[in-house]
Every structure is written in C-alpha cells, then in structure tokens.
C-alpha cells in the first residue's frame, strides 16, 4: 500500500530530514518526493510505500502529524487511493 505525505507551511531548515527520518525509523520506503517553495510557503509531497511498515498506519499518521505540530506545519498522511479515485476516471 502506498500513502501520500504532504507537508504545508512556512519554509524552515530540516523539514524533509525530520519527515524522512521518521519514515526510515518505521521502515517506510520513500518512493518519490517533490517540493516547491513559493514566497516562503513550503509544500512537500512525498509518496511512500508503507507495506513493510513496522508501526500501524494510525500511529505513523500521529507521529508525522506531531512533527508538523512541533514545527508549525500542516501534515497530512493519506492513502494514495483517495487521490486516484478523485482525480482519475
């Protein structure tokens, strides 16, 4: 199963590092990352494979959201299918 992690907010040092470290810790493999910065607004989208994850999905969601809360960023972790079903016919 693949999930999409999105991080939105003010750009600062270490966002990508912290999120990917948490993924590595849980054995969640990062497949693809795109990020953009528009006038200080940081948007990172990360596709990850969670099929070998050591922690249950809801715990992973909570721990990544906590990183977001600590840094003042908005973090979403969502199953890939929500985007596929919404935007592809």
């Amino acid at each position, binding site marked *: 199963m693949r999930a999409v992690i999105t991080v939105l907010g003010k750009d600062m040092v270490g966002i990508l590092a912290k999120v990917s470290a948490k993924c590595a810790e849980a054995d969640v493999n990062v*497949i693809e990352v795109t990020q953009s910065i528009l006038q200080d607004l940081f948007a990172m989208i990360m596709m990850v494979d969670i099929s070998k994850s050591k922690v249950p999905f809801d715990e992973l969601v909570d721990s990544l959201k906590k990183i977001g809360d600590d840094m003042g960023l*908005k973090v979403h*972790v969502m199953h890939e299918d*929500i985007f596929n079903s919404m935007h592809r016919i």
Partner: protein
Amino acid sequence: MVNSRDILETINMIDNEHLDVRTITMGISLLDCIDANIQTACTKVYDKICRYAKDLVKTGEDISKEYGIPIINKRIAVSPIAMLAGACNGKSPIYFAHALDKAAKEVGVNFIGGYSALVHKGFSAGDYALISSIPQALAETDFVCSSVNIGSTKAGINMDAVAKMGKVIRKAAELTADKDCIGAAKLVVFCNAPEDNPFMAGAFHGPGEPDCVINVGVSGPGVVRAAVAQAGDCDITEIANIVKKTAFKITRTGQLVAQEASRRLCVPFGIIDLSLAPTPAVGDSVAYILEEMGLENCGAHGTTAALALLNDAVKKGGVMASSHVGGLSGAFIPVSEDAGMIHAARAGALTLNKLEAMTAVCSVGLDMIVIPGDTSSDIISGIIADEAAIGMVNSKTTAVRLIPAIGKKAGEELDFGGLLGKGPIMEVNRNSPSTFINRGGRIPAPLQSLKN
C-alpha cells in the same frame, strides 16, 4: 505518481472548504424480530442492532484516518417500526423507541432512524399506534428519528394522515418545549419517501432492501462554492460544467469510503446519496453557492432557477462517479442548518413561500423551518398537503420538517446546537385551511401523461 496539483487541491478541499463524507448509514432489517410479545420483540431488536453495528463507528473512524477524509456521522436506519408494532396487539410501540435508543447508545452512533410508518394509502393498526406515540417517543429518547410517508405519486395523498401529522408535529414540539422543541426536528413527513436514504431524520430501511446494507451520503457545498467563486466571470453553461466536475470529485470520495466500509464490515454496498448537505458552519452552505452564482441574497427572484441548475448539475456529475446512486440525491435546503439560509431568512429575503417554490426543483422539501409557536395543527397540515402535492405531481421526494417554536413568535430564534443549527422563526399564512384538511379521505393519484 498523482499530479501534485491534484493532491494539493484535495488537501485544500478538506482543510479549507469543508469536504467531508457526511454519513455512513447502516441499514438493518428488523422484520425477523417481529414477535407478538413486545418485550421479546424489543430484545430481538436491540440484540440484532448491536450485533450488526458493533464495528460501524470504529470502522468509520479507521477509514477516516487512513484516507484522511473526515467522516462526520455514523448512523443506523432500521425497518419501519410500525411493521413490528402491528404484531404487538394493543401495546404502545414506545418500547421499541427505547430499545432503538439504547442500541444506538451502545454502538455509539449519533442517530438511529426508522421509528416510521408508511401510510400513503391508509393506516394499519400498527401504523396508527406508532404515529400516535411519535411525540412521546421523540421526547423520551435522545437519538431516535421518526418519519411518516403520507403520499406517493402512485397512491395519491392520504389526507387523514396529513391531518394527523399536523397534530403530531405540534405535540412533538410541545413535549420538548423546554429543549428548544427538538422533538419536531427529529420528525419528517414524506411524500415519495426513498427506502435507502442515509440522511436523518428521514432515514429508514425499506422493506425492499436486503438484510443489511451500507449507504453513504456525501457532502461538500463549500467545495462547490469555492469552485464557482474561482470561475469568476463566466456564463451559466460554464457554471453548470464546474458544478458537475466538482460533484464528480466529491462523489468519488464517497464511493471510495462506501466500498471500503462495505468490504471491512462484510455488508453489501447499497447506494451513494449525491446530496449537497450544508452545515451551520460558515462556508458550508448551499445558499452561498446560489449567491456566488450572482444573487444578492438567497430568496431573491432567480433563486429557483439557480437551484434547479445546481441540483441537476450535482446529479449529472455524481451519477458518473458512483456505481449506484439513490437516496434523496440533490441539494438540501434546511434553513436552520445552512448559514446562508439563516442569514437570508433573518434579512427577510427568504420566505416560506419562496422556499416552497424552491422545493419543486430540488430535494428535499421544507426542511428545518421554525414557525411561530401558536401555529395551529391545521395550518401545519395545510403546509404538509401543499408540499406533498408538489412531490406527488412531480414524481419526486418532498418532505416537511417544521418546528413550531412553542411560546415564541416570528422574529425570535430557536437554537438546537450542533448540526441541527439555529433558525429564525418564519411567519406562516394565517388563513385557515381547517375545513379542507378535516374532510379526510385521499387525494387521488395524479395522471402520469398529458403533462403540462
């Protein structure tokens, strides 16, 4: 990988435009719980609901977390209780209401619908007993919702039931006068009631449905409004296209949630209800979509046309996004649950007459309208008869959910809190329809040809 713009669009819909799945409703047949002993029947009802729905709330929460999409309500609809009550000769069906309420609390859902009777052609003993007990049932329970179908295109309108329901609505409000008359807010009078509607207060599990089924109601007025706002200065054809595309995306979310809930609960998927269901939250309003199209206030001349366009486009977009569509499917216009409607009613732009005209082109009907506390039951019956006639002649569902604000007058307000919202009391036409209403009998079913 999915396009990053699409991902950010979805996130924005959830974070800023109130995109959500409004309800996962489990329909449960209780026809196998019929028993001549009412206590035995109630035990069977309680046990079956608890057995079937024990994982409903947890499953909804799990799906919500995994897919990142809010699922606001988890609810249950059951077979019309009048069908069970008919077997319990001479006993008040109120025991069933308590059994339903207890089961709802046990499994953690926030409403249970089906304290209902289908009397479009006439009453059976069970129907009559149930309808008479509705005010008490709604006053003594917290989560039970009630509905009565008093007319249909094929059967006509049962005017005896219309007269009775005017009294029942008043009584339901009177018995809960100390709680903002909330009893009446949990009672819907239908014409052409759908058997698979997941939305409360009118949900019940029709006799043609399977033993158990999952129906899902989507939402998203805020998303549609934002899309129309973004379109800026464009013509009406383009507006219709934008609404269709947006409705497609919203419905796909509901379809995914419905399939996943059905798979995890091992219960067949029934339908998606394609309704734009507003909430009192600012930005989650159907009225504001109409205003975004270019009306100064909801209720202005042009409102019915704008609503017709919206309702049709939502269906066109949604139908393609789902494998089965049913329920009420359309735009809801519940006054007290829609920030824009509340505002328009307070400003005097939206009247009961205009709302009645609007119901001719959209689901569902005169919904969550607070009327003066001294409105007679005959006037309430007159409103029900008019609304049912619109549904009967146009082969569509119409409903009436009126709340007589006991002890209050036009201009004052009732505040129910939560999703039921708050609403200004709207004046009604005081001319008496009493003689007409109290004639009784049935309005014959209308012709289905020679349409003009």
